[in-house]
């Protein structure tokens, strides 16, 4: 009676991340503390998008799309450290960027850039970490194919939140989410607010109100 294969099959498909299109309402805030009272210890922000189609006889006239993931570490609303493509590891070593991808991937759901946060190693004065996505080459998210941004609980690989960026709107940046201290542990709040800017510096005025 029971179809043993069907659900597992679907699930496998999910884990490879194909054709998943949850559009969370922009600005929707979700508390993601675990319901057993435990807290997140490691989170990853993954960013993926499809490379621009080849243009010109030799593909040399392609308008490459470069999206960048960044994380800003705040202590009491003051930026203390930033992890982005020019500074891949925070000085304290708790936040690590896996490296800059300048052109995107196949658009099949894999992360093209990722930022890993080891929450247990974050210095005691850091109380918030804000994740952002910027279009370095200036294309708005309308022009980018199969772009998404997701937040993953790194300890078990579970996806906590996912945003579809493409077709989203006429803007070039998004403030994705923040993880912030709650008592002894951490919570994550998905923000998803739109902004414009080439790098995280341009976003600072937009980040401050969400702290």
């Amino acid at each position, binding site marked *: *009676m*029971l*179809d*043993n294969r*069907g*659900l*597992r099959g*679907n*699930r496998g498909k*999910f884990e490879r991340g194909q*054709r*998943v*299109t*949850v559009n*969370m309402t922009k600005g929707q805030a*979700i*508390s*993601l503390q*675990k*319901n*057993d009272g*435990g807290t997140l210890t490691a989170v990853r922000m993954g960013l993926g998008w499809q490379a621009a189609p080849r243009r010109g006889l030799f593909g040399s006239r392609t308008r490459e799309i470069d999206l960048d993931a960044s994380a800003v570490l705040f*202590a*009491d609303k*003051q930026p*203390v*450290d930033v992890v982005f493509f020019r500074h891949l*590891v925070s*000085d*304290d*070593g*708790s936040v690590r960027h896996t490296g800059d991808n300048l052109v995107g991937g196949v658009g099949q759901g894999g992360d093209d850039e990722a930022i890993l946060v080891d929450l247990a*190693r974050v*210095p*005691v*004065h850091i109380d918030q970490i804000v994740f952002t996505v910027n279009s370095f080459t200036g294309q708005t998210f309308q022009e980018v194919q199969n772009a998404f941004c997701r937040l993953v*609980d790194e300890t*078990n690989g*579970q*996806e*906590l*939140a*996912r945003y579809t960026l493409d077709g989203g709107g006429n803007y070039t940046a998004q403030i994705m989410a923040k993880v912030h201290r709650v008592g002894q542990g951490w919570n994550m709040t998905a923000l998803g607010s739109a902004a414009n800017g080439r790098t995280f510096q341009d976003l600072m005025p937009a980040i401050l109100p969400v702290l």
Partner: protein
Amino acid sequence: MTAELVRGQNHPLPEVRLEVRVSAGKPIVAGATLSDEHGKVHGADWVAHPGAPTLPGLKVSRQAAADHRLAVDLDAIPQAVHRVSVLLALPSGVGGPVRFGTVAAPFLAVTGLDGTEVASYTITGLDSESAVVALELYRRQDAWKVRAVGQGYAGGLAELLTDQGLPEARQLAGSINEAVAQGLARSVAAPPPRTPDADRHRHAAAPAQGPDQTHGGTAPQGAPGNASPQQSPYGNSDPQGATSPYSAAAAQDPSSPYAAGPQGTRSDHGAGAQQGPAPTDPPAAATAGGGPINYTHPGRRTAAPPPTAPVAQPGQSAQPVAGDATGWSMEERLYNQVWGMFEDLARTTAAYRSAVDFADSRMEQELDTVLSDPRSRIGGQGDAARETARAKHTQLVDRAREAFDRDLTQLRAEADVVEPALPPAYARWDNPAWHAYRVPMEIPMALRLGDLHLPESENVRIPMLVRLPLERGLWIDSGYSESGHASLVDSGELRALALETAAALAARILAVHPPGEFSVHVIDPAGTGASALAPLVQTGVLAAPPAAGAAGVADVLARLTQRVDLVQMAVRGGAPDALPPGIDVSEQLLIVNDFPHGFDDRAVTQLRYLADEGPAVGVHLMMVADRQDAAAYGPLLDPLWRSLLRLTPVPDDHLADPWVGHAWTYEPALVPPGSQVLQHVLTQVATARRSWNR
């Protein structure tokens, strides 16, 4: 379109006839409760469960299973019902898992009748719960929506049903469990679960036995230290010269860290020591004519690097183990581990300093605010505010210090096991590895130049390891330095210390190279370095006596310059074999004392040429100099000084790490006062050199 829901998220339902599929990996109970607009379940007949699987518009499975399909017809659900909660529970009293924390995260999908998924949800983060409200389907303005709930209950079904306002919750939970237990008794036992972990262990264990089999299985190879001199494939007259120095140490000194790991068990050190002699073993076995010939490549490791540190118990840090890093040899693993400790210390100190800076600036700001607030002048308000600011500061700094101290303790413990395990090239002079010194057969990958530490972490010393061959020349600064302890010593003493440092470093470089691979030349124009360089001169390890006077300087520089020119030409011409017979192609180190004494313009130009072009073709510089002495040359020599790695004879904080850029205090690797280890080592080097040259 499928919506992958997260906890709390909702999604509209386009159809009224649906299936809810559940997949959990272990047999679980699936059911559903109906509740009114206040969320209250009115009675046992509002609950669909294995004992009563069918309600109007709702059907659930009759028994516990790993996979379920719940059929839902929203149109058929009574108007009074505003919410359908899908619940999952672990069967109780049947010997299965008792908490969701031990089973795979349950996965649910809401699908249409044709199987297309509308929404899905994986319930994560469950731990001690044994029942959970997974999803709810609810009315919202004449339409139905689904919401991911994931609310778990450690008290099981009884607690879950009580929470939904069911009066006879406990009795119903009992009858559900009974129905499930009966169902399970009838059903066929689930196949034993696959244990990927067990598989992995088996795979990991098999190759780990590789070294044992190669070394223990064939008798002649089992005794690395016993290769007799006649059978030595290298024909070395020194009986111990044929075996690797690391293995010799292990074989002779049972207290050596290579013989036993810190836990007293056979750990990676043992493995490392056994692999050390591998290159010499197969030929020895063959000439002995005893055991079978081993066709394995001597340099090839039969195993992946052995498993490293044991997994930490939850809540406490792992027991540190020497060699706990990646690498193909123990040497490389230790090198990587030392660099890992270096980075860890740099980063944890960065975290601590950043926290303290922040606490300072915040307190300053708060105190300023108090000062500028007119209200604070009345009564004790100002004092109280100041007190609060200070308390906040102390609290934050204390917490930062606590985290920092924890890291320091861990690094200190790691240093304590790593330091004794280091091979001579990485070890301090007081390490037993140097007392058990044997002339090596291979050039090590790196060399210890000294120790590094930060002011906050005086008791954690990081070995400063640089790769060999040296990429830059060395400059032992005998000049007066503004910072550090240099101001405490007078300039004559500083010069003597600089020479002593240079001699110790040169001796170390010589000792870690096989005989014939490295030569040291000394330029000491006025003979001021005679006493410090005496160990090198008297044991006869130098290529030639120290060159004195202008003529000596010119002669040595001319020969080295010629060597650089010829080797460069040969390499560029693609004919490195075509060098004339008189050329010494081994690596060369030129120690220059008292620069620029005895140097004319031509000699200075040659020296600069050697500094620029030498390292690429194996000619290295070690300047023992005070930059002020050469001030007359002006900026001409700036590139020379910049190209050299500056080291100081006394502790001085002038070296920056590559990650954060802290100023690290360097301390040279000096021979402990009164120790004869330098003479001991250099005598062996000299003996080996003489027999090699013969």
